[in-house]
């Protein structure tokens, strides 16, 4: 298959996937035990309120009709209105996007940086004390609950030094950067261990290859071997890891937002859950699912450029 063919095929695969995602998000309403409208309105709500919610959410119509309406509206960029505040779900998402985007971007960059350095160091000194220590730390990192790591950073760094805010998103660029520092570290502690494991194995396999020995024999410095030859292979693994980890990353950022009271999408979702605000829950779930799908797609296409062997069989 040609390269363009691969990309076209991959793009086309995304369309039924997105249709199915929208169906599942719609179905969320129907897994509520009993009458969904009653469950959303609350036990004490009047029959009129329940009926109004039923009509607002389209629950009085058949499932296929609901689906067509939902997809039609979503394609026109209409994700419905909050049953609590009456605001459009779009505007709620738009308001909340910035902190989440900051956290995802800064956290991912930090995770990539941390895991590259640590895994290269561990692989270079394979089976030494340093290697075992780094591996041990990463097992510890996997086993710690993310929100707890966040609280520990508050307890051990923010409270004693007073340098970092323990809640909110700050004002201006510098303020944002200052407010995002500890959440991004928490993010990296949660996400890096998995990356470190995969990268370390890759580095060990790479260091055992002939071309590394040849480069050494030709007098290249270790730094040059690492930066010039191995980094390209590592980059492909890192991209794949980002793609695999993007789902967990979104969950992690949601938990971190709640821990640091950052006004992001995750916090909006948790609030919507506590208020049983279904359109907002559905809207945010849908947006994050689309985001995951696009990251998967983007990474697949990017990897096919970096490594021509991938995906063309």
């Amino acid at each position, binding site marked *: 298959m040609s390269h363009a063919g691969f990309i076209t095929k991959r793009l086309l695969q995304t369309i039924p996937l997105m249709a199915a995602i929208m169906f599942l998000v719609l179905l969320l309403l129907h897994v509520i035990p009993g009458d969904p409208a009653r469950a959303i309105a609350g036990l004490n709500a009047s029959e009129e309120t329940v009926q109004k919610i039923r009509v607002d959410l389209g629950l009085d119509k058949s499932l296929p009709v609901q689906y067509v309406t939902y997809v039609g509206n979503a394609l026109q960029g209409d994700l419905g209105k909050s049953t609590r505040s009456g605001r459009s779900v779009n505007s709620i998402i738009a308001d909340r996007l910035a902190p989440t985007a900051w956290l995802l971007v800064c956290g991912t960059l930090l995770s990539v940086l941390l895991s590259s350095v640590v895994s290269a160091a561990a692989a270079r000194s394979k089976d030494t004390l340093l290697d075992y220590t780094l591996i041990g730390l990463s097992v*510890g990192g996997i086993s*710690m609950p993310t929100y707890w790591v966040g609280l520990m950073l508050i307890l051990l760094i923010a409270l004693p030094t007073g340098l970092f805010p323990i809640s909110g998103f700050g004002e201006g660029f510098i303020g944002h950067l200052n407010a995002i520092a500890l959440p991004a570290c928490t993010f990296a502690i949660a996400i890096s261990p998995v990356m470190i494991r995969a990268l370390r194995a890759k580095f060990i396999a790479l260091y055992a290859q002939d071309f590394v020995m040849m480069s050494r024999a030709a007098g290249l410095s270790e730094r040059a071997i690492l930066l010039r030859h191995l980094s390209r292979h590592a980059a492909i693994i890192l991209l794949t890891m980002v793609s695999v980890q993007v789902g967990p990353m979104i969950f992690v950022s*949601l938990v971190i937002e709640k821990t640091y009271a950052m006004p992001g999408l995750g916090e909006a979702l948790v609030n919507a859950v506590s208020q049983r605000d279904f359109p907002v829950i559905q809207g945010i779930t849908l947006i994050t699912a689309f985001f995951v799908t696009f990251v998967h797609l983007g990474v697949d296409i990017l990897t096919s450029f970096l490594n021509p062997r991938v995906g063309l069989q």
Partner: protein
Amino acid sequence: MDHAAATAAPNGGQGKARRSARKPLPAKFKIGVGIVFAYVLLGVLAPVLLPFDPDRSDILSRLQEPSTAHWLGTDQLGRDLLVRLLIAIRVDLPVAFLAAFFPMVIGTAVGAIAGYFGKLPDMIVSRAADLVQAFPVYVFLLVLVFALGSGASSFIIAATAIAWVGYARLTRGEVMRLRSLEFVAAARVSGLPELKILITHVMPNALPQTLIYFMSDIVLMVLVLSSLSFLGVGIQPPTAEWGRMIAEGQPFLHSHWRLAVMPGLMLMVLGIALSLVADGLDDWYRS
């Protein structure tokens, strides 16, 4: 995993299983099992060890510092912190276990059928798996638990609806690899029915990998369950649960750090122990 698959391929995995059966289990496996066993014991014996009711509040003795009566002090409602830490084992460990066990049973069965029979079953299973994986899975889990109504059983149901995918993918790959090996062809030539070949000859070779994945999945489930409870969706108060206890301890972080720190340590040590078990099993199987 790829590496293990490659080395296992030539002798069909069977000889390999026999060889590793003679090898002693690594130390980290034993340490991990020991810690998990200690947790189970402490969880079971908590009411005998400590004479406190974990759920009954006693406002008069709230937020006490550690003393000879309350070794770790009391929480914001005057409940003994230590007894709540131990009683929570009864919630977190079994719920996480079941939330990994049911997906394992369903995912392995589905993956085996897809991998062995291919064609339509494989297509259906693979597409369904793609769909579930297109979601940020734990966000989906959160929303699903909420929709089903918070609580342990909702968590287990939602986890099963989502986490079967990992097991199905793993088993499907293993079974596809094993299916093409000679011992399967030999079984087929000798006239065994397909389903019998799958169950008695193929599956025993695919299960060790599944078991290793299961162990690391429990770690994840413990963490996810506690995260959901932290967010207010999972286990509901007053039931003692570590994530919930951390959330309740957060406002007292600057004055009574134990309330938020201790449940996290309980989680971390359990997580490390389960990881050691999984890692040890993995090393043992590969060697």
